[in-house]
């Protein structure tokens, strides 16, 4: 039987989850995260072996615990994952490796993301200036070519975060901020429920619903960070209302 031990680390925009899976027998396991979306560890831009959008599939031995870690924009939930034993581990595998395994183990030969200029094309939704290098290098065939891989991998890439954990400058903004807004709304719902309690019983129930008093403390810390960020947003909001680009005049001039 596989058992799970866990620990959370608050990394600002994300929750880092450390898991230790132990078992008294050698067994295959399937681990499903209760925090979604899952941002798995990556090797050469691919989710590391065993990781998928829901969690992890692998095996644990009786001698050695399985130690795993992943991130999620969601707030901590107790427990962060459920683990199910999937039966005996099949030793050895036949057949060829999959293309995904080859890329994960050997690495991609393509240029790193930073080395590729950002194209401007209507189809990408990227409406901020790109470097001039792109227009010099690319022929007419290349318009519309962008780093679609970031878009295609979608949820796996999370908030436009690279494997190094750094936000990418060339990712379209909407997918990057939407999960944060969703998480913020969930935090506000929870905070409002906590703020609306009137009796001791209600308070206990509300605290339990959040995941205990530690979770309430974490929620307060996250809300402080949210306030700082929203103050900055408010400044941008005013400027966004005020600004107007004289597009037609500029078009006549250039």
């Amino acid at each position, binding site marked *: 039987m596989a058992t799970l031990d866990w620990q959370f680390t608050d990394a600002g925009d994300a929750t880092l989850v450390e898991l230790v899976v132990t078992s008294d027998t050698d067994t295959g396991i399937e681990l499903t995260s209760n925090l979604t979306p899952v941002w798995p560890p990556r090797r*050469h831009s691919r989710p590391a072996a065993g990781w998928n959008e829901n969690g992890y599939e692998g095996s644990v031995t009786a001698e050695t615990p399985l130690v795993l870690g992943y991130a999620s924009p969601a707030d901590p939930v107790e427990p962060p994952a459920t683990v199910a034993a999937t039966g005996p581990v099949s030793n050895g595998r036949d*057949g*060829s*490796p*999959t*293309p*995904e395994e*080859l*890329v*994960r*183990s*050997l*690495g*991609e*030969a*393509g*240029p790193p*993301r930073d*080395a*590729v*200029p950002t*194209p401007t094309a209507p189809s990408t939704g990227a409406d901020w200036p790109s470097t001039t290098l*792109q227009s010099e*290098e*690319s*022929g007419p*065939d*290349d318009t519309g*070519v*962008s*780093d*679609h*891989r970031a878009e*295609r991998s979608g949820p796996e890439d999370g908030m436009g975060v690279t494997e190094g954990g750094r936000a990418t400058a060339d990712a379209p903004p909407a997918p990057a901020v939407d999960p944060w807004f969703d998480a913020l709304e969930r935090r506000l719902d929870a905070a409002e429920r906590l703020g609306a309690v009137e009796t001791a019983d209600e308070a206990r129930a509300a605290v339990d619903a959040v995941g205990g008093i530690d979770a309430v403390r974490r929620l307060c810390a996250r809300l402080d960070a949210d306030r700082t960020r929203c103050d900055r947003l408010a400044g941008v909001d005013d400027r966004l209302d005020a600004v107007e680009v004289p597009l037609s005049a500029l078009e006549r001039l250039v």
Partner: protein
Amino acid sequence: MRLTVTAGKGGVGKTTVAYNLAAELDAVAVDADLGMADLPSARGPDLHDVLAGRASAVEAVREGGPVAVLPCGRSLAGVRAADPAALVDAVRAVEREYGRVVVDAPAGMHSDAAVALLAGQAAVVVTRPSRAALAGALRTRELARAVGTPLARVVLNRAGRDSHDRLASALGAPVTAVPESDCLAEAHRAGQPVRAVAPGSTASERFTALASAVETVLRESSSGSLPQSGP
């Protein structure tokens, strides 16, 4: 039928062999050298688009030239957007439509070279009689073995008159020697297979023999009697 033409090192004539083999086998040549494409190109969707999910593999095949080609783009952004792991499915899609595919693999030991090997039922390793090229061929043979793709033939470009037994023994596959010739260079410049430019030439005959040998190996492979590459 899916055949991968590969080499450990660039500049040994891999693309020339792939193009001429595709002509002999009446196959589609897929330019899988994502970063250093060399087969003739044209406007329209290319392999970068296919591997980025923007076009289907079959619609990217150009049938107009002497050899049907699935060309590869030349832009950095295209390489970046392409998912090398998607090559196997793309090659299989072309095979379903056209029957025969020759994959011109990239040189090197990265995943793009390995996935191109995985896309083929058998591989032809191209090399030249130089220390660096032979070392590259050995490394590629190891990569093919790791991926599980059998080695059908070794092509020795710019071959001299020496015996090639040692090379065949080292790489674990028979050697087809293609001597340096003007007609090959002329065919390359004209964007034609050598059999179209110089039908009776030694080079043309060697490619015909190579194609025939590879077909035999692939037949045996599909009937399950082919051993894994090398000793």
